[in-house]
């Protein structure tokens, strides 16, 4: 296996690049020219590390889930990103990008959000730095993730409803990009996943790579070895997965499992299983796999989990899956909900619906008794309680299983 990293032009194999209108070119070019220098600057490094430690609460624990392991007859470790400040891995990236934005002299931050976790993480770091923050969120998502909308507002961010198209994450991203076009000089766009034009996928992956950096020494403490046999993570755009895989990308003995949302079933027409349903094309400035019609119109995905409800995947994941380096698994709404309840009862941990998808994959892959498996528990389930409760009270309610438009 060749060394897996982004090349000079922002490609992982045939995926990536920067397919952006000229209006965005100066911003993206500035970022491309500066991000590595800034990230490697000792000053930046010090500030980033100290905020991750004292503000986010890193390192996040690596926890041996004994009752879960017993049930599945293997060795399951949970990487506890749910214990980070704001309750998900998203803040690793927003801390990094806000420090970067400061060094680029930007005074205004924009972001897109689906589940609201990235929006909250962005609003949080903007409050921390005293910088204006505008978060675009699809109208459909504003309804299904109300607690996070309230949190963003309390943190001082303006939440702007994305009313175009299907009014979910894809359209929130379009609106954020349009905002950036309209505000080319003072604004930095904090993208929430390993998507978008180069250098975003690589930059976000680097900020999230702290997840696997910690896994190395934590696993060594637990097992005497730095490497697990399998890493399982859910993939919306793919940032928690990219972070969990990062330092193992070139260790081909470490199996990488990418879990996608199958919604009502991969072929039900209400799904977000991009690696199965997607074809090569361009979304949000990146050449990757995406769900589209033969004419190249982007198809609206569906998942009960707002964070996985995205019609593309980051170019790194398109490359990993297409080349066989990562294995893709699809998990339905119902399977994810069940896994969420199971984890709550077995381990006393209520996972985010996104992360619940990752757990459900344990039913779908083969592994050995002696394997060491790390599941990236990307976030906590507080934001999803309402959905969980509705499921508890009489099966899955029609409106959380219907297409996003009907909510």
């Amino acid at each position, binding site marked *: 296996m060749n060394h897996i990293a982004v090349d000079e032009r922002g490609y992982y194999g045939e995926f990536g690049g920067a397919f952006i*209108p000229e209006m965005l070119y100066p911003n993206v070019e500035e970022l491309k020219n500066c991000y590595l220098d800034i990230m490697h600057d000792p000053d930046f490094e010090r500030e980033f590390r100290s905020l991750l430690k004292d503000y986010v609460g890193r390192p996040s624990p690596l926890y041996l889930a004994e009752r879960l392991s017993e049930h599945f007859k293997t060795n399951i470790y949970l990487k506890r990103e749910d214990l980070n400040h704001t309750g998900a891995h998203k803040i690793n990236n927003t801390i990094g990008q806000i420090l970067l934005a400061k060094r680029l002299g930007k005074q205004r931050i924009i972001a897109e959000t689906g589940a609201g976790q990235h929006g909250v993480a962005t609003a949080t770091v903007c409050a921390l730095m005293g910088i204006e923050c505008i978060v675009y969120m699809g109208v459909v998502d504003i309804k299904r993730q109300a607690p996070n909308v309230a949190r963003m507002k309390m943190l001082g961010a303006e939440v702007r409803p994305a009313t175009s198209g299907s009014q979910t994450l894809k359209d929130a991203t379009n609106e954020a990009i*349009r905002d950036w076009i309209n505000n080319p000089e003072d604004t930095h766009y904090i993208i929430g996943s390993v998507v978008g034009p180069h250098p975003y996928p690589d930059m976000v992956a680097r900020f999230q790579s702290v997840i696997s950096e910690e896994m190395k020494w934590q696993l060594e403490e637990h097992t005497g070895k730095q490497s697990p046999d399998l890493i399982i993570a859910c993939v919306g755009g793919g940032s928690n997965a990219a972070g969990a895989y990062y330092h193992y990308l070139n260790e081909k003995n470490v199996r990488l499992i990418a879990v996608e949302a199958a919604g009502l079933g991969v072929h039900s027409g209400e799904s977000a299983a991009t690696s199965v349903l997607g074809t090569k094309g361009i979304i949000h400035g990146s050449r990757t796999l995406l769900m589209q019609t033969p004419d190249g119109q982007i198809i609206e995905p569906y998942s009960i989990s707002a964070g996985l409800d995205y019609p593309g995947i980051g170019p790194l994941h398109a490359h990993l899956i297409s080349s066989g380096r990562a294995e893709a698994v699809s998990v339905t709404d119902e399977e994810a909900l069940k896994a969420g309840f199971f984890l709550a009862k077995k381990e006393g941990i209520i996972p985010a619906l996104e992360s619940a998808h990752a757990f459900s994959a344990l039913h779908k892959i083969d592994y050995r008794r002696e394997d060491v498996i790390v599941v990236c528990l990307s976030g906590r389930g507080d934001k999803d309680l309402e959905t969980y409760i509705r499921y508890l009270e009489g099966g899955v309610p029609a409106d959380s299983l219907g297409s996003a438009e009907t909510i």
Partner: protein
Amino acid sequence: MNRLTHLFSKKQEDLLNIYFTAGYPNLEDTGTLVLALEKAGVDLIEVGIPYSDPLADGPTIQESGQIALKNGMNLALLLKQISIVRQNTEIPLILMGYFNQVMQYGVERFVQDSVKAGVDGVILPDLPLYEYEQFYRSIFEEAGLQISFLMTPQTSPERIRKIDQLTSGFIYMVSSSAITGGKKDISEQQLAYFDRISNMQLSHPRLIGFGISNHETFATACKYANGAIIGSAFIRALAGSENIEQTCLQFVKMIKEEEQCLNFKENKSGLI
């Protein structure tokens, strides 16, 4: 000769390029619109291929695209419509779309079918210069399909030279850093940018677009470039239209209105 090249060889001033979204307001309006715009005195026409996710466009063009898609418009149908109307007109036609649509159709097939249908040029705002130069330039050049690249107030002089070199039709000067559909007046800052670009003596004609919406903004754009492109304002005019021909006539008249005044202003500015 390519119809665009022919046009620019006989006319270098006050070129009026009108944009409409194919399939809007109705699926079969393409031919009617092209002929009506030509009759109304438009010099060249930009036909938008409707797209689900038009990143560079404001709400007006987005909505027209969504309606067009609902009406059933697609690239193959559009090319068929163009080939039919092409039998009755020699007006230069430009296709505007996003690169994903072209990728799915197949770049080579797109270029060939476009030329066959009578398309003269294309605008693909999210096709990067680099990708074009490396992978697609020869396909376009061999087929004789022209391509216009965009520049903005933030584009560096060095990059403008590159754009001038790779463009084969006209250069699309984005009037300000914005998505389409703005309605503001033209600012001093924009004038300075127009001036700066005029002074660069580029080898291709320049048309100014984005936010050109009435006689005044059109006239200003024409002072600083070879002409201007109007999109959202025309789509808005079409929205309530009962009679397309009538709307086209009135709209173009409104834009060109004080033609003599325009010349007068030009003379005056020449004196100052």
